[in-house]
């Protein structure tokens, strides 16, 4: 998965730490795209513990290794040999820029998706048509398009249906994956509002602490107070 960018540069000069540096670099290289943390490097007992920071700095200066912040744990830096690209586990994947999820791009793509389905409100749109559009116009991969569609299904904004070749599926192959909008406007029914969610206790973060005679109680509750303001 990790790509080799260029050939190994030769270590040069008569640095007294050359042997240690070489060893460290080999260790980092062996980790490929996953990189190595300082903790992992310090596992090597043949190098004096006090030298690690200096050696790493030196390798960095020479342009032989780079430092990648991990997306899951910003404080945990990973060292990668220059010729490797960081793994998905470190960067977060295609949707991440500098270790942060590109939410605005995702939301933008989702809005475009909904727009297409709105335009075809009275029939279904196949996965192929969707992929065709997003691959050509937005330079997404097929998998990325699928991820966006799946996300909208999870949002309950669109639904995935398999064609049965009848009525609204007339122009599709039987079994083909299709999409359409949910909601009354599209004639597809709506999820119910939720009787419990619409009252203060349904949304209350303190329900576990609320008791009839406790410090948090329905008689003293501020959420109720606000709700009952007329």
């Amino acid at each position: 998965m990790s790509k080799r960018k260029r050939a190994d540069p030769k270590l040069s000069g008569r640095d007294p730490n050359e042997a240690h540096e070489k060893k460290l670099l080999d260790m980092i290289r062996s980790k490929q795209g996953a990189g190595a943390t300082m903790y992992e490097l310090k596992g090597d007992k043949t190098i004096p513990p006090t030298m690690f920071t200096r050696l790493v700095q030196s390798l960095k200066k020479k342009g032989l290794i780079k430092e990648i912040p991990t997306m899951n744990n910003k404080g945990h830096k990973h060292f990668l040999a220059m010729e490797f690209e960081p793994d998905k586990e470190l960067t977060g994947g295609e949707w991440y820029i500098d270790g942060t999820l590109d939410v605005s791009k995702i939301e933008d793509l989702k809005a475009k998706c909904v727009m297409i389905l709105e335009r075809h409100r009275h029939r279904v749109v196949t996965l192929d048509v969707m992929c065709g559009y997003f691959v050509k116009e937005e330079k997404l991969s097929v998998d990325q398009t699928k991820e966006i569609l799946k996300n909208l299904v999870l949002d309950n904004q669109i639904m995935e249906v398999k064609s049965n070749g009848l009525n609204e599926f007339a122009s599709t192959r039987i079994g083909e994956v299709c999409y359409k909008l949910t909601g009354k406007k599209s004639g597809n029914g709506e999820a119910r509002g939720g009787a419990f969610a619409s009252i203060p206790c349904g949304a209350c973060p303190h329900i576990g602490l609320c008791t009839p005679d406790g410090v948090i109680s329905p008689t003293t509750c501020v959420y109720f107070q606000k709700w009952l303001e007329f």
Partner: protein
Amino acid sequence: MTSNLRVRTTVEYIIYKLKSLNFTIKPASGHLSPAKANYKTTKSVLMDNTEYGIVYAVHIITVQFGSVVSKVCECLLRRGPLSSRDISRLAESEISHNQVKDILYLLIQHNCVQAFSIEPPDGSESKAVVQYLVLFNNILHRVRYNKFSRVVNEELGRECGIVLDGLLSNGRLTLGQLIERDRDSEKIGEIVIRGSLQKLVAAHFVERIPSPEPVLGNKEQEPAKKKGSKAAKILKEPETLEERVLEAAIPVEAIRFPHVFVQDSNSSIADNDSNADNDSNADNDSNITEGKRKERDVDLSDPSNEVIWRPNFEEFIRRLRHKACVEIVKERRDEGCAIVLRAMLEVGRSQEKKVKTDKSVPMSVGSIYEEVITTIPGRTMLQERVEACLDQLSATSSYLPAFVIEVDGSYIVDFKAIISIAQKDEIEAVVMRRYGKEAFRMFRYLTMEGRFVETDRIADAALTEKKDTPQILLKMWQDGYLHMQKFAVTGGTGYTPPFLLWKVNKLIVTRQMLDEMYHASLNLSLRLTHELESEKELLLLSNKKDVVLEGAYEERLIKIKAKRLLLSSTRFRLDDALMLFANF
């Protein structure tokens, strides 16, 4: 079983990967939700009464009958069936044995308690002790009487509604008592009452009271010979004690809902009961022991030997369940589908054996169409349209399951699918409001997957920021909405944090929701009492005929009335949602 296998596949894969890197894996402790650490997949999980269910039931009894009665009730709710002596010993405040007996009589009269006894083992000298079983659901039904009343008023008219109201407010009455009651109130007349009662019984809205004190066969000495016998294979043994007691107490259909009934009948109910039970025993080899009606602590028989009637809650819940199904289909599909479903429920209703039926009997298109055109909204529907609606109802998508199943040209209503989708909507709405839309996506993803999934994979699937995902999942887990498995990783060259797997466990979530809904109903009721109490004088004043409130007083009166309306209508609607989880 399947999900377990899937879990193992995921875990095994990760373990395999980590082991190849020289790691040691062991499940860490504390993998269950903290709120549900004592969760067990036992029958108790399936029971309707959660902790707040009990508190709410006790609250209902306190409001309607006072605190002494509620003490007895709470004792039974928390400890299970007890004898009257044990109740007076164990109830939290000092209540004499005689007082306990009076309270039990009252609770039996209002159908909240059922007496029974268990046959002593063979050869035992000891006498069977009468025990009292509290009927949790019947207590909760007490706040639903308006709903029951509305069902009867809509279906059978106002006069039947009046007779039913009499039974609801008194618990149990004879025809004579109903007539006597009418003389002091509505004055609809003896003939009308008799006719209405007959209609109510025919529609199964009213039933003859169950046997006052059935004797259950001793389970331990249940004959081993039954095992493997044909009868045992066909008839499923009732599981809970409550089910056993109720099955033993309720008479056979012909006695429970008689077609002909006469006031002051000279025939003894006990005789009828006994014969009927004998018949039923011969038929189904049930565990009722006959001819052993014990002398009761509480005498329930009417001196005139007149038949005593009571509302049949089972039928009301069935009707409300059907109504809810039609509503759900109307919202999630359309009006046409709702009309067809209503007709299907009507066709299949008489053959439903229990309220929580998963699936209806199969029905032909012809019989469904015949029923559709007898209804006002369906009168103009063509068979073609009905068929199209049935197709729509049988369709599945990522959004909706099939509500109707087609088998060899016949159609079956899938009650479970319809109710489940409404439960899902309720739960997801809470997740959305309480934890936000990222959590909503994660929760829906885990519901769809139905198995354990690792944190990062959830973040990838829901497209949520990976570093925020664990916090969101943890919050839902702390509140009992998610199930978690933690795996500690040791060895290797460095520290590797434990990896976490998450899952939506429908049983736990449903129970959690139910408990919170009981809690919320209690809160609404307590707040209403509090609000009314704070404006008690004003409300008293406004009730006086010669007093006109003006200015600030008038404004306060308008406000308190608006609060009362909002709180009680919300409680009413919340109870509809609660029934989805507890009764349907």
